[in-house]
């Protein structure tokens, strides 16, 4: 076990964990932040996507020791009340079906718009290809990201 300082959702905190434990499980089982989801555990489905220094990363593959001191944002840190433009767009387009992958989808979309505020449909499809949805909500994810990007233009 070792003491690791994390910058998480705008706060600093210290956790006492195995340094090799993936960030995903520190978030879920140690800190009780269950919005970030487990699904594949090998970095191929994207359900566990969080932002690290603003970029989308798959938290199931990153040992917690590697994110020491870096800015981590999870779905819980996006807004306290669901008011983030991406969250609003997700509700406006009624994207979710079962909803399990959606925190990962939303975090990937936030990272995409941060790097590319006005992506083309193809750029959206390519960037979002890393997050799988078994319910098949892709057409609405596309629309929601376009809606959020248009809102940013206005």
């Amino acid at each position, binding site marked *: *076990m070792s003491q690791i300082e994390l910058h998480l959702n705008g706060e600093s905190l210290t956790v006492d964990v*195995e340094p090799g*434990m*993936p960030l995903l*499980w520190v978030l*879920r*089982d*140690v800190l*009780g*932040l*269950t*919005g*970030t*989801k*487990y*699904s*594949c*555990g*090998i970095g*191929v*489905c994207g*359900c566990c996507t969080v932002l690290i220094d603003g970029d989308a990363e798959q938290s199931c593959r990153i040992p917690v020791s590697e994110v020491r001191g870096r800015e981590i944002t*999870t*779905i*819980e840190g*996006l*807004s306290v*009340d*669901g008011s983030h433009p991406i*969250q609003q767009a*997700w*509700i406006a387009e*009624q994207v*979710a*079906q*079962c*909803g*399990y*992958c*959606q*925190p990962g989808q*939303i975090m990937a979309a936030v990272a995409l718009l941060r790097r590319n505020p006005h992506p083309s449909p193809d750029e*959206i*499809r*390519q960037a*979002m*290809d*890393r*997050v*799988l*949805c*078994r*319910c*098949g*909500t*892709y*057409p*609405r*994810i*596309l629309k929601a990201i376009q809606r959020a990007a248009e809102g940013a233009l206005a």
Partner: protein
Amino acid sequence: MSEERLTRRDFLKVSAAAGVGIVISIYLPGCLQADRTPAATTEPAAALAPNLFVTISTDGQVTITCPRPDMGQGTRTALPMILAEELGADWASVQVKQADADPAYGDQQTGGSTSIQVYYDPLRRAGAVGRALLIAAAAQLWSAPPESCTARNGLVTNRETGEQFSFGELVETAMTLPVPNPVAAGLSDPSEFTLIGTTVPRFDAPDIVTGRAVFGMDVRAQGVLYAAVARCPSFGGRLAGYDDAAALAVPGVVRVVEIQCGMDGTTPTRGVAVVARDTWSAIQGRSALRVDWEEGDGASLDSAQIEGQLRERAAIEATEGRLVAYYRVPYYSHAPMEPINSIAWVHEDRCEIWAPTQNPQLLRDRIAQTYHFSEVVLHVPLVGGGFGRRLEFANTPGGNLPAMHLTEAVNISREVGAPVHVVWTRDDDIHFDYFQPLSVTRMTATLGNINSIQERRLDAAGYAVPTGALRAVTNIPQAFAHESFMDEYAAATGQDPVEVRRQVLQPRARTVLDLAAEQAGWGSPLPPGRGRGAAIHSTWGVSPCAEVAEVSVDADGRVRVERVVAAIDCGVAINPDLVRAQVEGGIIFGLSTTLKGEITIVGGRVQQSNFHDYPLLGMSESPEIEVHIVESTEDPTGIGEMANPPISAAVANAIFAATGKRVRRLPIRPEDILSAA
């Protein structure tokens, strides 16, 4: 809907509950429970159990207890809409509660696309009775005739005077009045619906987008321990021995226990559970475990051989004037994004369970019957995808083997004396699924006689591979074979594929096909390398769904589905946006079974383990999708399993239109297109 049913004395009960308000209990007769769902019961005793509870409280809140789990179809929103429409409730004051597993709710199984069709009429009746009761209360308070009062948006209005009462203000008076007759209460004409037929956002959406939604994986029981279980990797094998020293040395691991994974009296298999303070340590501990397995009689199973055996049994000789074709559908895994998991907490002779399931009472009853607990309480959190996996139907030669995950959780909790969350990794989920069975379907027809078309499907049954139900179940191979063969018949007889179908379809289905064809521009020219294919299917005999797929095929046989135009007639669309969502999602789900992963078995072992070798359709491959809903005032039928069956044939037919190559195997591989005749 039959009046006879409504004359049953016990159809609906209204009671006054102190501190709550009006409670409307609805009793669904057994005949309403869809007879095709395997667990449906027609026992009179079950028929008299109330299935739904609605309360109207003195603060005006209307609460409906949703009896069935919602895996994303939106029933938790659509069922309250039906009630609120007839009640005249203010939608903003309607809320939904999820029912625990309880026979009081009747059949709680979410399967067969039945929730809306089963509850449509009873919920309308309940709403109408509630409305009549509230109007009677207002009429009494005003000394006005009830006919002069209307209920809308949570208010009863006296049309003569303009006076108004809110529902909440009327509850205490209503509680003292006799209950109106459900038949006499009268229903709105569907043409006057103001809430049904509109797009209402789902109740769960705000919690989902903020990460607050609690799925099974997210339940946190106090003092919970996490467990990963090692199970025999080959079918029919057994545990020979294990060494837990290395597993116990993993930080966070607290116990290693040998347990029974299957139910007593079914197919007992023993496994080794690693119990830890967190999920990661449990998984790490399991990796460190040394286990010896003894292979059993399933160790020689091979899916290619199974296919060969089915193919041999299906074979008939081709004769002059007879068209014969064989279609193969592989084993599939369900792979919902939320892996299989459940929590059990055994204390003394009581057991509390949290299980994301489609079948609450099956799980609860199995546990209660197997272990003789004095009480079993099963809570249903949100379900991160089901697709039939969480119905827990598992056919094996040794019997039905349901709910292994929950059996494991109960057995481990009994050993360690704490609540235990059993988490299946994705590897476990793919490996130990109850697979959609591999099948070979033979289609035959006498050319020139379209009514001579016959199908014979052979499913891989009787092997030591547990099989279950995947979204739409047998409709997947049926639609693939039948709708591909219709195209083959059209080609063999020189007819247009849509015209051929029109000759045999019932009027409602024909309208659906015509709508999809028209919207897709059927018959209009396409660039070289592109083709259009049509298919139509009515899953479980209802809600005809037609799809026209437009695909492009490159020189290497790689297929891209560019566009899909779908049409569906599901009767009244309670919430059309939910219907569209299910059709879009069904098409994408069906494109995964059409073009992506399959489960293969070699040496008695499943060869796939995760999304890298059992891939799903990704967003970059997702087509443009258009959904058209036929306007209807007919009673609603299902939507959950309608859109995935037709897409496989629509794509195969489009590939034929683009290339002249006919593929009869799913999933469709480039090499199969290149080598096809």
